[in-house]
């Protein structure tokens, strides 16, 4: 067979999309669109990498920062959010063995989030609206530098993304709590106790007091608990981001209709505090919680065993939620008017808890795997270990910069962008997601396909891992040597590091192309298009019976 044939029809006939349930199809839509947006973000990243090496003829300062503005939005919301939401909208019904609350709402979610992401992208590409995702007041309302139309487009795009996020949340909570037709009504209290991890906590208390456990088998499995918990943060941060959007919109109106308000009527420091409170619910909140939950799920699926220290894990997830509400000051350690007590308590001390919660998740996951030796080095296990390594590198880097002394010389340098969050996102988070994709793939496709090439899968793994760690390392070293993250250097001050980081960036981008090629050669373009056609099966089917039987047997 020629390459063209394989790309069109897939490996061994490709994906049998006609046998897919509505839920399977929707999940796959989230995944496909999320992977495409990941590629867009990677291409943008590579453009910036190129620009840092030598100015590209078609990119001026305003275009460069427009790319820098949309890159994280496409990456985090367009890609990561979609991948995660898709996976969870499948996992919650699948693990709880009951139909999803609403298929229609799930479809609406990925569509409106995609439209929102494209709008944000256009506001950068066409209008060069570039306040960066940090939108420090009053920059987003500075219409001497930015166009009004671009700002409106950006805000509307973000609003669409957040509306999609709220729709996802409704669907998740709906699925956990509603009673499908014909089933016995479930009491809410034990569900809530379990969702917040209070039962796990009471189990520990009873054990210490030498009593019987509070519940033997908690009504919600651990991954569901993590999803539920992370979704609380997802909700709160959506409110904050929507609020910021409304404020910008108001000042757009103020500018256009001359209501006569000065932007200094909004206190920049107060704004920054609220903004980081909300945004940290993503980075230090839902990401950490979702990732921990996904590690636990992956470890249980890979080993077929229960989690090591599962009550501690449940309690730690609750701790993580509460911690995530109170760490935001670590983003304001170099803001001199910020009260010192906030810097010490929230910025240093409460932030240190993240080392504990993440360290626990790391240990519990590894131990669960270890106790099940020997394991086969499958793709899912490989990527899971990559994800664990990513956080083992990035979390200590975060803890180091969450220190009054260190932040004075690290804040806004390439260290933060490289050693800390690109390693966290690219190596830690993204590799965890690839692991989840590999493990869910057979379940989502009813075992109808076989991976086109394991060799290509290995190439993807190594290029992504080494590229991700390498880019983080070279950016990190440039940061230690003084390179800022949002400054245009013109005299080749950090050229050596930027060339090395550029090579690593190219590896990451190449890895994505290889992965996409491998996946398309597996399911075929026909199968890919079929995912977007309506399903023939009934709405309440989660996984078709026959396929489910094959998986068990």
């Amino acid at each position, binding site marked *: 067979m020629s390459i063209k044939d394989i790309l069109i029809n897939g490996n061994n006939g490709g994906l049998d999309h006609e046998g897919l349930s509505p839920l399977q199809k929707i999940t796959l839509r989230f995944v496909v669109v999320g992977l495409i947006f990941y590629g867009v973000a990677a291409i943008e990243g590579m453009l910036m990498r190129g620009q840092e090496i030598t100015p590209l003829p078609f990119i001026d*300062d305003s275009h*460069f*920062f427009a790319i820098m503005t949309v890159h994280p939005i496409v990456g985090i919301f367009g890609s990561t959010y979609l991948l995660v939401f898709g996976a969870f909208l499948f996992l919650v019904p699948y693990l709880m063995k009951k139909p999803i609350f609403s298929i229609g709402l799930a479809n609406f979610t990925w569509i409106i989030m995609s439209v929102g992401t494209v709008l944000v992208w256009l506001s950068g590409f066409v209008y*060069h609206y*570039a*306040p960066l995702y940090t939108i*420090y*007041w*009053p*920059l987003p309302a*500075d219409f001497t*530098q*930015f166009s009004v139309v671009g700002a409106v487009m950006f805000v509307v795009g973000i609003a669409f993304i957040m509306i999609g996020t709220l729709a996802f949340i409704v669907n998740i909570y709906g699925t956990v709590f509603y009673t499908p037709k014909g089933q016995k009504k479930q009491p809410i209290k034990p569900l809530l106790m379990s969702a917040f991890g209070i039962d796990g906590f009471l189990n520990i208390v009873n054990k210490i007091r030498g009593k019987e456990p509070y519940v033997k088998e908690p009504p919600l499995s651990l991954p569901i608990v993590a999803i539920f918990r992370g979704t609380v943060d997802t909700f709160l941060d959506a409110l904050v981001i929507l609020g910021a959007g409304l404020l910008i919109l108001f000042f757009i109106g103020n500018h256009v209709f001359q209501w006569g308000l000065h932007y*200094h009527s909004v206190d*920049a*420091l107060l704004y*920054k505090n609220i903004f980081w409170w909300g945004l940290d619910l993503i980075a230090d909140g839902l990401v950490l919680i979702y990732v921990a939950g996904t590690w636990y799920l992956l470890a249980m699926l890979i080993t077929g065993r229960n989690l090591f*220290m599962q009550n*501690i894990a449940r309690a730690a997830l609750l701790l993580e939620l509460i911690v995530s509400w109170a760490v935001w000051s670590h983003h*304001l350690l*170099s*803001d*001199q*008017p910020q009260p*010192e007590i906030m810097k*010490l308590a929230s910025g240093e001390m409460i932030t240190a808890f993240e*080392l*504990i919660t993440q*360290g626990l998740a790391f240990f519990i996951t590894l131990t669960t795997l*270890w106790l099940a*030796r*020997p*394991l*086969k080095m499958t793709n899912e296990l490989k990527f899971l*270990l990559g994800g*664990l*390594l990513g956080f*083992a*590198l990035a979390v*200590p*880097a975060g*803890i*180091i910069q969450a*220190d*009054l*002394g*260190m932040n*004075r*010389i690290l*804040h*806004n340098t390439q260290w933060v962008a490289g*050693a800390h969050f690109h390693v966290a996102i690219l190596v830690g988070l993204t590799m965890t997601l690839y692991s989840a994709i590999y493990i869910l793939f057979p379940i989502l496709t009813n075992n109808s396909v076989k991976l086109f090439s394991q060799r290509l899968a290995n190439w993807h793994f190594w290029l992504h891992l080494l590229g991700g760690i390498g880019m983080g390392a070279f950016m*990190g*070293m440039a940061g*230690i*040597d*003084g390179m800022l993250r949002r*400054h*245009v250097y*013109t005299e080749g001050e950090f050229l050596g590091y930027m060339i090395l980081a550029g090579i690593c960036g190219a590896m990451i981008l190449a890895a994505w192309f290889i992965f996409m090629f491998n996946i398309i050669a597996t399911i075929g373009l026909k199968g890919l298009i079929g995912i977007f056609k309506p399903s023939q099966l009934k709405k309440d089917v989660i996984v078709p019976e026959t396929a489910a039987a094959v998986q068990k047997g």
Partner: protein
Amino acid sequence: MTTSAEVLFALKVVYTIYAFAIMSLIGWFAYRVTKKPETYKTWLTPKVFYTYLGILVVVGVGIHILTYNKIPWVAWELKKHKIPADKEINITVKNHEFIFPEQTPINIKCGEVVKFNVVSEDLTYGFGLFRPDHSMVFQMQVVPGHNNELLWQFHEEGTFYVLSTEYSGPKGARMKVPEAFKVVGCNKQVSMEGRK
């Protein structure tokens, strides 16, 4: 007195060692986890788990105690309302430009306690000092509508330039004041961050 160049160098060494150690650990784990164990008796007891938990706590708290004792500017920061300044330098930023109170370079004597107060009249900016080898001496954010004050005591001789360390739109991406401050009278030459 420890300079920021020395702290940065230490960070580079310590973090590189850590990075290689943790990568080796995961590599070793990946290799061993595929092998059949000789015995199913395990040393991974809850006791080991709680010891590990204890280590995390000690490290998480210890790092701040360590920096408090080793990095002089932590105490300057926490006691900034009590330490009297020998020299005050008031700087204004507006329209993507730094406005200095006098002709640059401004001379600073070694060991003098200098209070920088930077005020922005429009956007959020940053204020950072850099050595000729481009490594950072220190930085702070410049939030509009507030005084942004920082105490610093220089213990290295040299001429430092200023960059805005916060993005203030594409117009502000190249904000720079070359040879802004000149520190004289130290017996120590300008510290190099360690790469030269």
